[in-house]
């Protein structure tokens, strides 16, 4: 009976640990993508400033409330603007950044094709 109890405890405990670890991973991932606005050049994850610590608490709260990663980013974006994200999406300010490498790649490819491959 004792043995059964232990097994039961282990099995009940395991999912709890698992979900905790998952939460932690999610939190780390999110805070690494949030810029600490008062200590620029650092992410919220790396920083120990008052601002970053409060932000971490808030991220934890939002995760517990069941917010998805994107919803949390949107939440902070609404308050602080795109600047708070290290990995902002495409919008009217950033589309040049996103499209320029692609454009350069295509132009470069065209030049290479015209100059070398056509000759062969």
């Amino acid at each position, binding site marked *: 009976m004792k043995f059964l109890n232990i097994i039961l405890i282990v099995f009940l405990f395991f999912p709890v640990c698992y979900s905790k670890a998952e939460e932690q991973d999610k939190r780390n991932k999110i805070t690494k993508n949030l810029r600490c*606005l*008062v200590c*620029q050049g650092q992410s919220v994850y790396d920083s120990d400033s*008052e*601002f970053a*610590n*409060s*932000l971490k*608490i*808030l991220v934890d*709260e939002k995760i517990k409330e069941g917010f998805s990663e994107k919803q949390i980013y949107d939440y902070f974006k609404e*308050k*602080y*603007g795109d*600047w708070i994200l290290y990995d902002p999406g495409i919008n009217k300010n950033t589309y040049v950044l996103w499209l320029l490498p692609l454009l350069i790649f295509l132009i470069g490819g065209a030049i290479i094709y015209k100059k070398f491959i056509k000759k062969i």
Partner: protein
Amino acid sequence: MKKKILPISIILIFGLIFIVFYKGLQDSNIYTPDANIKNDIPIFNTKDFYSDETINSFGFFKVDKNYLLNIWSSWCVPCRQEHKFLMVLNEENKINLIGLNYKDNKKKAKKFLDELGNPYNKVFVDLDGTIAIEWGAYGVPESYLILNNKIVKKYIGPLNQKSIDEIKLFIK
């Protein structure tokens, strides 16, 4: 002609890069957020500084009144500087001053207000700094001007004579 294209284009490209970098050199790399905003008042739960009763921000701010929410703390040095301006603003009786006591020790905060005077109509408590983030704040001190239930302007850093004059213009 064909031989000239390459050096000219190289010079052009380097010139362009030089201009871009030279301009970038003069830009401030410290991010300054937009101060003119039109945001709704965030919804949060807080406690009253004196009575400890729970307050919900929803319904607290009335449409027909003007408010200035000021984030302060007893450990913040610039807050001492701006305090006299808040006292002046309070004497005008045209605006409701709301304090948000940020990550503070209650005893020290009380001492701060006893010493310098209490300009606030109401003081909220923000122990872990999360309410300040709901407002979109960076740190202390910071002030938010609220007209008709909308945040119209935020002042980052201590208030000065110029910002007080501006607030007076807003609430005229």
